[in-house]
């Protein structure tokens, strides 16, 4: 880089901060063995870059430079503090005498180590989310608090406690061994999907902030797929993209819900649908098909129908059958019943839903009653439809859902 004016160096450092700071942090946590020390070292390293690069030029490998600078700054800081706390002397000595970290030591894995540590199942789900957004994505505690409708001190405390647990219980900074990878990856995917859904179900709070949260989840999931292309990681990315493709079409400007069959499909984002569908193919090709991949496959079938009546319901029923085998749940059974109603007619679906409601597990679930009401309506059984819409309305607190159900009730006359 020939131009080393302070202005241009500042721009370089700023863009490096955006693109590399989380990777540098991930490596510093491994090298220094401590989150707080690594975070201090990270900001010291970037400050050093701003001070030195205008004189010395931008180094050939800025990331390695930043890691190395951060490591030296941390050793200096420990030495200074060791005057007051003798126990830090040995740590500073150890860090100093250890050979400088070789770049070859799978530095790419550092980001994975960070992700798996932040999503360790011995941390509470709330702590996993806060740690992931703070440490892996680099969001501030204020941003996280705004997105989760809570206060910055609450989030800050969650992060402090999680770091204390990582240190005191000695949660290792490592990618799990193959034997445990499946269950541990499931824990990571749960976190990224929770973050996505928090941004996607815009039932409360500021819409813009929450859409950003979905974008953050997608970025994180893309990173995960790059680092660890396991089939369910690919499947979840596909699912997120396919859901995201419908964001603009699924509610009115006032925030009222628009059902899939009533959405303006020209407003679905083709680029996301194409990418999502290609990822579904890739995940299916591994032949280790999990629940995220199957949900994404169902979303892809919907997305590829240009009009609602072109939907391949037979394929959707088949996918729900598989999903019910992989991960049996009453909700999957309910969705399957709705798909059967579309394939074989409302009476067939109603029989299945009544069986599910009689079973009791869905008795308090408003969407089960809403689905029943819809099938009764289509069969002309207005009284039953009215009773079921009313039951659904009694069971939900979400305002957009309540408005939707109330509208349906009015339309019955």
């Amino acid at each position, binding site marked *: 880089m020939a131009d080393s004016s302070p202005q241009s160096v500042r721009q370089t450092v700023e863009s490096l901060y955006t693109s590399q700071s989380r990777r540098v942090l991930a490596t510093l946590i491994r090298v220094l063995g401590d989150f707080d020390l690594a975070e201090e070292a990270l900001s010291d390293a970037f400050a050093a870059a701003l001070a030195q690069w205008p004189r010395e030029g931008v180094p050939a490998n800025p990331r390695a430079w930043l890691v190395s600078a951060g490591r030296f700054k941390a050793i200096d800081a420990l030495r200074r503090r060791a005057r007051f706390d003798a126990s830090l002397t040995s740590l500073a000595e150890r860090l100093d005498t250890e050979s400088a970290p070789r770049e070859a030591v799978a530095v790419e894995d550092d980001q994975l180590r960070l992700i798996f540590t932040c999503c360790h199942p*011995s941390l509470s789900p709330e702590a996993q989310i806060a740690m992931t957004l703070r440490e892996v994505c680099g969001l501030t505690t204020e941003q996280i608090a705004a997105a989760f409708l809570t206060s910055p001190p609450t989030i800050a405390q969650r992060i402090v406690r999680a770091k204390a647990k990582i240190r*005191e*219980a*000695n*949660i*290792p900074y*490592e990618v*799990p061994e193959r034997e*445990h990878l499946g269950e541990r990856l499931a824990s990571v995917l749960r976190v990224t999907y929770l973050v996505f859904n928090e941004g996607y179900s815009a039932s409360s709070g500021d819409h813009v902030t929450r859409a950003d949260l979905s974008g953050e989840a997608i970025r994180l999931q893309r990173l995960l797929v790059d680092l660890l292309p396991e089939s369910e990681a690919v499947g979840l990315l596909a699912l997120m993209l396919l859901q995201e493709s419908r964001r603009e079409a699924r509610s009115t400007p006032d925030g009222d819900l628009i059902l899939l069959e009533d959405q303006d499909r020209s407003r679905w984002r083709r680029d996301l649908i194409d990418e999502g569908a290609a990822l579904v193919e890739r995940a299916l090709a591994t032949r280790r098909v999990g629940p995220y991949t199957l949900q994404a496959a169902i979303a892809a079938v919907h997305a590829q129908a240009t009009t609602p009546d072109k939907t391949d319901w037979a394929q959707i029923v088949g996918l729900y059958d598989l999903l019910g085998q992989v991960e049996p749940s009453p909700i999957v059974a309910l969705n399957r019943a709705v798909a059967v109603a579309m394939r074989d007619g409302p009476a067939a679906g109603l029989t299945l839903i009544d069986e599910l409601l009689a079973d009791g597990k869905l008795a308090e679930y408003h969407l089960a009653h809403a689905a029943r009401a819809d099938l009764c309506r289509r069969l002309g059984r207005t009284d039953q439809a009215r009773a079921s819409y009313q039951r659904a309305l009694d069971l939900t607190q979400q305002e957009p859902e309540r408005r939707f159900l109330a509208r349906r009730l009015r339309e019955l006359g």
Partner: protein
Amino acid sequence: MKYMLLIYSDEKGWTDAERERCYAESTQLTQELHERGQFVAASPLHPVATATSVRVRHGNPMVTDGPFAETHEQLGGYFIVEARDLNEAIAIATRVPAARKGTVEVRPVMQIPGLPQTS
């Protein structure tokens, strides 16, 4: 680093045969841990009906029976193991036979100065 594995289960939920098998399998596990240098201590505990609670308030000892709270699961035994990190301790906990029936709580053991060295 040392971890304590605290075993909680419904102590009335065990048949004699299950209990005997659990002791045998747990003993086997302690032998394996010992061979790998990871064993510190382990024992089952007699039921909570045999427990005595001791408190000292204002310098006066108060001795009463049993635990205070009605809970579904009681502390029924423990392991203390040497493990590299939490993941290794969790891996040992998943091999504790009582984990299949109850819950094993994994707690890092705090190191404080001045304790006698027993091992």
